[in-house]
């Protein structure tokens, strides 16, 4: 949406001069607001990223029949509706007692999911064409170097757009619609691919794979273009959480929970997702409406953790597709096989995952099972309603583009939802984002007052997590960003705001 102010006179409507702002609040609202707390020596000791968590959805679905959920949850978020669609279906599979869905359903769901991963990550490929957005402003020589890398790849923007388009076509063909699809249902799917649909996608794959490989190389070159600064920027050692496949390989659709500490050591592994509440606790803090999840039993170090691409590429033992695994090995080697906690490396990891998603799509399109050629069912029949049945419960976990996504429902005997708990990726990353912002602010703060360069740096750190706040909250769309500087006793010393039109308001 825009922030333009328009006059009703143009429409020949009311003669009263009312002004209407077309602003982004209908989907994403509020300021991104950061408060930096200073100690007596004028050092930044804490950052508070204030965001208003959107918990209304959990209440919204209570009382609804369970079969409405897979479509309804897509309204949670305009960015990753497919991830919510699939996580809800997986939770309902579990609640209804389906250990697994028919093979064609599993293949279709995986195809849909990797289409979503590809199209979501491709947006970052597009944004690499103007690297200021993702990498911020460095010193002038470094900046020229970074821009030079991007300018040497004039087709990034076009390729980013077309990769997104391809991912969305995968979604359309697997879910039935470009938005609000209905492809997955509890117990399976409701459609399979036609041979011509499959062929229409397959013919694009050589090009898609080539672009994805180019994207990884470009992200790596951009990172290397100002290596010392990028290594230091927002460097926040954190535990890493994700699901991994049962063999320890990357599996973004299904698996068990694994976490490593910041040094890379395993702290939990092989944990069934259904027991997530035994592993993760959510706490609240008085200054934020958003919850702060943490591991219940951290083996040394803080309980908070990071989810998403940077965590995932290091949490797995390997990526089961060759090109992406090669890229992952090069990524790890570039850091001397030490754990990587530099937030800007997230963009590099994200491109590795995009390549993986393209390879998975290629593999699935080669599998005849997608065409339901074996004549097997697309979905299991729904269990008959049982009089006197007790509540049923199911947890569905998926690795959404931004990280681990948990859906948890209980269903009453009347098939209606009796409770709902969601932990979205941005909520998982809440503490990690605060830590990154604090690290950047501490590094950039000159001990006196706020400035635009610092505001840019804070934005870049937040953006590396790509917080999907339209489901976690309603903030950060065309986000006006406000940064305040305060003493520990709450006395505000300085405030700087970038409005959504780019204008800077600086008021001490």
């Amino acid at each position, binding site marked *: *949406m*825009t922030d*333009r*102010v*328009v006059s*009703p006179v*143009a*429409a020949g*409507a*009311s003669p*009263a*001069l*009312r*002004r*209407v*702002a*077309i*602003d*982004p*609040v*209908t*989907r*994403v609202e509020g300021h991104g607001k950061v408060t930096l707390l200073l100690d007596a020596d004028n050092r930044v000791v804490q950052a508070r990223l204030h965001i208003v968590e959107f918990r*209304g*959805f959990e209440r919204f679905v209570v009382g609804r029949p369970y079969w409405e959920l897979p479509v309804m949850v897509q*309204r949670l*978020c*305009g960015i990753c*509706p497919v991830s919510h669609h699939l996580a809800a279906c997986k939770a309902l599979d579990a609640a209804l007692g389906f250990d697994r869905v028919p093979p064609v359903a599993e293949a279709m769901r995986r195809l849909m999911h990797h289409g979503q991963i590809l199209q979501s990550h491709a*947006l970052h490929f597009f*944004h690499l*064409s*103007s690297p200021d*957005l993702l990498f911020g402003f460095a010193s002038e020589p470094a900046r020229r170097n970074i821009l030079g890398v991007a300018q040497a790849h004039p087709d990034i*923007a*076009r390729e980013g*757009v*077309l990769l*997104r*388009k*391809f991912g*969305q*076509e995968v979604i359309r*063909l697997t879910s039935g619609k*470009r*938005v609000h699809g209905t492809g997955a249902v509890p117990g399976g799917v409701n459609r399979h691919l036609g041979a*011509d*649909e499959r*062929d*229409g*996608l397959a013919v*694009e794959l050589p090009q898609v794979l080539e672009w994805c490989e180019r994207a990884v190389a470009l992200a790596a070159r951009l990172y290397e273009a100002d290596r010392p600064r990028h290594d230091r920027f927002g460097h926040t050692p954190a535990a890493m959480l994700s699901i991994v496949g049962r063999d320890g390989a990357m599996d973004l659709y299904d698996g068990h929970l694994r976490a490593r500490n910041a040094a890379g050591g395993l702290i939990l592994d092989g944990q069934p997702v259904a027991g997530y509440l035994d592993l993760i606790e959510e706490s609240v803090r008085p200054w934020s409406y958003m919850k702060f999840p943490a591991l219940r039993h951290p083996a040394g170090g803080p309980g908070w953790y990071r989810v998403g691409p940077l965590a995932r590429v290091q949490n797995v033992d390997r990526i089961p597709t060759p090109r992406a695994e090669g890229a992952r090995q090069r990524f790890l080697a570039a850091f001397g096989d030490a754990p990587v906690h530099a937030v800007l490396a997230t963009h590099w990891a994200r491109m590795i995952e995009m390549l993986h998603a393209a390879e998975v799509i290629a593999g699935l399109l080669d599998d005849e099972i997608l065409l339901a050629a074996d004549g097997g069912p697309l979905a299991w029949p729904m269990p008959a309603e049982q009089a006197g049945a007790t509540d049923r419960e199911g947890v569905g976990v998926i690795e959404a583009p931004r990280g681990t996504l948990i859906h948890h429902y209980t269903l009453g005997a009347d098939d209606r939802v009796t409770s709902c708990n969601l932990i979205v990726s941005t909520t998982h990353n809440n503490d990690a984002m605060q830590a990154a912002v604090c690290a950047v602010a501490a590094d950039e703060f000159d001990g006196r007052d706020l400035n635009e360069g610092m505001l840019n740096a804070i934005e870049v750190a937040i953006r590396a997590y*790509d917080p*999907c706040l339209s489901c976690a909250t309603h903030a*950060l*769309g*065309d*986000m006006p960003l406000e940064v305040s500087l305060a003493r520990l006793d709450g006395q505000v010393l300085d405030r700087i705001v970038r409005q959504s*039109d*780019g204008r800077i308001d600086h008021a001490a």
Partner: protein
Amino acid sequence: MLRESDRRVGQDPRQPDRAFVAPLLVLAVGNPSRGDDALGPWLLDHLAAGPARHARRVELMTDFQLQVEHAVDLVGRRAVLFVDAARPAAGPPAAPARGWASLERVRPEPGRDWTTHALSPQRLLAVYEQVTGHVAPPAWVLAIEGRSFELGEPLSDEARLSLARAVELAARWILATPLPRRAAAPLIQEWM
């Protein structure tokens, strides 16, 4: 640059009509579950039963929000109408006009990228020019006033009145926008 073949990426080969591109595009954004944010999708439903039934003249499209790939949807268009919900600006209470919609011409504004999640119509037009190397098609924004955007709410009474005005404006836009004498498809080749 985007090429004609780019439009076909991954598209269904069973649809021989894919090469055809309706000269007018109405692209409405909004979340149908968030009260008056559903105004855009609702408008499309109304148009589908009205002037927009002339499917070869206009294509109706909806999404939650604008993103870079919508630049591909603009290729080959003669004109584009973006539709979105709007809410009254903050400030002193205005005259009690009820039900309100506005049509405004918009132009590409490259500007600063603010988000990785959504684009303004102006920014989308700039993306179009960035990736095609061509001038963006003329575009308008139809802003429809809404009042309440809470999850699970139906359209407010004010929004229903706004919607009626907006349908009128959109229908006028569809019928009044001049079209080229030729069929639309060759436009793409013109731009290659």
